[in-house]
């Protein structure tokens, strides 16, 4: 059975996808990122630089714990909660 993961979205992710919470079937964090990008192509730029590297500022919390640095191959379990927070700061 593919794990069902609750994904909570913030800021432009929420704006881009038109919802703040969704349920995704995913084995890994990478599956979730890919499914979001598939839903909204321009999100790719938010997560990855032009060389395809994951940007350091995107914050991933799995079950309220910050993944630092995030391992996109991290295995997820049924019922996990993922918070995805793009940066909203600078000066």
């Amino acid at each position, binding site marked *: 059975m593919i794990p069902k993961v609750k994904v909570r979205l*913030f800021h432009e992710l929420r*704006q881009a996808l038109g919802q703040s919470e969704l349920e995704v079937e995913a084995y890994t964090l990478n599956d979730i990122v890919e499914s979001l990008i598939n839903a909204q192509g321009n999100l790719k730029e938010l997560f990855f630089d032009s060389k395809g590297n994951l940007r350091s500022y995107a914050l991933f919390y799995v079950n309220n714990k910050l993944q630092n640095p995030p391992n996109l191959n991290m295995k997820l379990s049924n019922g996990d909660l993922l*918070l995805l927070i*793009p940066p909203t700061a*600078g000066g």
Partner: protein
Amino acid sequence: MITSARSKLKWVGKTVNRRDGWGKVTGETQFFSDMELPNMLWAKVTRSKYPHALIKKIDTSKAEALPGVVAVLTYKDVTGQNGFGILTPDQPVLCQDKVRYLGDAIAVIAAETKERAEQAAQLVEVQYEPLPLVTDPFEAMRPEASKVHPRGNILRHTSVSMGNVDHAFQKATVVVENTFRTGRQMHMYLETEAGLGMLDDKGNIVIYSGGQSPYRDQMQISRALSIPPERIRIISTPVGGAFGGKEENTVQIHLAMLVLKTKRPVKMVWSREESGVAGMKRHPMTIIMKTAANKKGKLLANKVKIIADTGAYASLGPTVLDVAIENCCGPYRVRNVAIDAYSVYTNNGVAGAFRGFGAPQVNFAMESNIDIIAERLSIDPITLRMMNVLRNGDKSPFGLKVNGSIGVDKTLVRAKKSRIWKSRRYYKSRLSKPWCKIGVGVASAVKGFGFGALPDFAAASIQLTPTGKFMVGISCPEIGQGATTAYAQIAAEALHCDIDEVYITSGDSEFAPDTGTSSASMALVRGGNAILAAAPKLIQTLLKAAGEMLHENPRYLVAKQSQIKKSGKSKNSVSYHDIAKYLQKSGAEMKIVAGYNVPRSDKPVQGTLEIPHRSYMYATAVALVEVNTLTGTTKVLKFFLSPDCGRIINPQSYTGQCEGAIAQGLGFALIEDAKIENGIVRANNFTTYVIPTIADMPEIEIDPVETYERIGPFGAKGLGEIGIIPVGAAIANAIYDAIRTRVYTLPATPEKVYNALEVKMASQN
């Protein structure tokens, strides 16, 4: 008084009455700390008694037993991530095992009265094991220093290097090296950190609070309490002031916890002393700067070491450091730079965002060195700056072509023509008393607006009302800067209607999409561009409906004066009011939401997070001061500021922002420094921490240079921060001009100026 150069636009560039003016001057607009709700509880935080200690035990039984106490919450009640912080959530919502400064929260209480809540907060018993203090950032960086956080005391260290500074120093005619220090300025808003929380009829959390971004506050509550964001509504106050100090979470998470627990409205207002202890501060910085020029005055190199005391938690410390790095060479062409920068944890409160965001500190250093070089080379200080300032097509010290409009050279021309500068010899000859000396100083400044290379997004909504007017939803709050008035001007221009037909809803997460933050001098550009993204889409809807009503092809229709009419001389037209009725009857969508992504560099400069910015603000300031050589007291008599902030949207708001920035800069330059000794804040009220009053304000002249910024709405840039950045340096240079000895530490208090005079006299003897 300033006037805008434009004439074709109907609303943009004109002084229109402030939207928030009437409510504020009549007292109709309430501070949230003055709001009361039926059945409301009062909240109080139990804070640490030690600036650095382990928590061995927390006992809330006595507080809970006190009559009138309804809830006492500790870390056990934090249901999500027990941490907040915009960039790194390293500050506990409620501390479990360790405290790192006196402001750390251990318990939060709700009681029937304010007095009961305060009493209960004192009854929470905490057993501590004190740890060695870390109060000096240089000491904090030593390996043997007590660790504020497990990973060590260096929050961020980075180095940026371009060219070859050592080679440039060898070739230089003049090399100056100095160590500069700046103080710990406090925001001292009219209203301290305060808010009111409640549950709505659906059981969702509603928080009224002073904040700078409803959606970010919503995110921090959601993350800390593991609640879906749509269950949290944030409404930000339009009064009270912020200046960066309310970017971070203050009362919001604690209020949310208490309303969930008690199911009753709860109010929390930090006392002024509590604000001084627990609130944000400007980063005190030590800047060691070595600057070189050739004999003609061309700047060759700048080697800079920056040590920022970020206090106990990260907040925005990493990006403040980036702004200090980006601005430490000023608005000049410098080919060889070597910058080594540290942001260091200590037990000295928490430093975070404050108007200027790291730039005023480094500007003081650079503009002092520039003046010293000018004097050594016998070059007029404005001429030397003019030789070196960035112009269109130039590369920044980071080797990148500078984007955006650049008017800093023109601000220097205005400074040179200013009455203070032209008449400086006259002013210097007119001494009020024999022991008072007059001086004139100049400084130029630069700062990017927005988040630089980091993502920066804004959305706005515009809804056509049934009466043909427009409701604009912008979530970044009005915090006194005049943003709502500017939004109304931009919307009226873009929607071809009267400004009184535009209503702005600002700072409410339920009625506006995420417009980002009121920070980084960016609220106008974010919100304005989001409106400009949404308005044409709504106009298209109006054109289509009008085409149906008039039996005309929409392509031949235009929007003008709240009507859609046939282009040319035809009188065939239909009002927005009638179109709204038509659309309402047909059940068509009358609301548009549109977003705007701020253009940015895909790749930040190596070693940085957000450099470069896409565009920059510039300014030049001139100060006329009188220094009393018997007391060391400095009085600023006149102040001139020429900003380049692109096109002016509202001349009155523009002047107000500049004057406010100068007042706050004057405090940074001469008065304000929150003393913290052994982790204890010694200056935490208006008796012990003095800010400038009207009696300290000089005669001010604002002379803007209007350039056209392509990414700004109608050519505008940001404005909120640039005015403060050159103030400290201009005043410091003026003090030197008056007494021929320099202060290297701000604020230039009477003691420091007097000591500088003593040292000078001793060296002459």
